[in-house]
């Protein structure tokens, strides 16, 4: 059983007879394969996550399903995936057209990313660009990427607070420190937690750079 966004998918099903498909693309953090849902009609990318816990099964109507899995399809920022290819191509250190950057023998379905609308606009967050003979050329910019990721961290922190997610990494004892101390520690826990969530979508090296950029203390 899974839970994709409701109204969205129902609308999508009215508009067309095909165009929703699951494909395997790279996981931008691990470099391994992961399943994504692509909507070819609305040109949107969804990430699939599976909730798995030991010793669970489903009863579904008059049947039993031994794996108690619950799949989630949630909208994904395609820039994380494109960034995976940009950082790889950066080793060559030059401006390149996007269709030469997003190339993958292991996951040939990556060409679907190039069809996403507004991708050019999104690329401004993480690249320098040049236009020659009305063709666009891009080069990864670490500086811009870190600024973009910092905004993502802030946005995620706000959601953690709204959803009252318990981010406490350590037991806090108010008796031993002043009120200010408590709240600044708490703030740091939120940054660290948000940094951890974003780090699931970027390579390790970039995650370390982001940690420095956010002035997070080295983990003990």
């Amino acid at each position, binding site marked *: 059983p899974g839970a994709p966004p409701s109204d969205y998918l129902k609308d999508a099903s009215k508009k067309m007879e095909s165009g929703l498909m699951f*494909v395997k693309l790279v996981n931008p953090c691990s470099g391994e394969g992961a399943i994504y849902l692509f909507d070819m009609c609305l040109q949107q990318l969804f990430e699939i996550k599976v909730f798995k816990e030991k010793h669970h099964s489903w009863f579904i109507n008059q049947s039993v399903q031994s794996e108690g899995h619950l799949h989630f399809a949630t909208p994904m920022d395609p820039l994380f995936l494109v960034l995976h290819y940009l950082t790889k191509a950066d080793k060559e250190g030059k401006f390149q057209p996007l269709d030469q950057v997003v190339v993958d023998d292991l996951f040939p379905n990556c060409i679907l990313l190039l069809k996403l609308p507004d991708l050019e606009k999104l690329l401004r967050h993480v690249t320098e660009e040049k236009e020659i003979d009305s063709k666009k050329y891009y080069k990864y910019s670490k500086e811009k990427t870190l600024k973009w990721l910092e905004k993502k961290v802030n946005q995620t922190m706000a959601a953690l607070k709204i959803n009252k997610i318990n981010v406490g990494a350590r037991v806090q004892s108010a008796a031993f420190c002043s009120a200010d101390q408590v709240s600044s520690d708490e703030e740091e826990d939120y940054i660290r937690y948000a940094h951890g969530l974003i780090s699931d979508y970027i390579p390790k090296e970039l995650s370390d750079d982001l940690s420095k950029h956010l002035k997070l203390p080295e983990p003990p």
Partner: protein
Amino acid sequence: MDSGDEEASEKYRIHLRPATLRDAVPATLHLLPCEVLADRPAPVGRFFTPAIRQRPGALEVSFRGRILRGEEVVVPPSLAGYVMVMDEKAEVLAGLGKKQESRGSEKGDGEEEPQPLERDFDRFIRATASFARFHLWGLETVPGPDAKVRGALTWPSLAAAIHTQVPED
């Protein structure tokens, strides 16, 4: 939680039959706190459902002689639940069958058989039912606020924050 489902190989595209989303009929789902090592029809409506009792603060049922306590969990309003089933591998098997046959008859003539079209590898999945709520069961007690599945249900709102576009400077 980790990503994925090992079904799809790198090349495959698994097409979701969109009409099945529209036509999916609501199903009754129970998430049990134990592993039942079977995937098959079961007379849930004969043995399990009629035994569910409403007690103060929880639903109660017994399964294999153990007391389960649980409650109804509502799928967050921005989501819809679907039960999906992969279609039989007909297309894929057809493709592979041809390939093996050609391998057998290859001897001698050296003629190269054309590769099956890429779409031969594509597969189809369809929604067989929908759900907006399910019953969550715990052994003896109702799963608490820290239960993993409850945490999982907050994931979509966090994912939205992580993946929403940020403003440009």
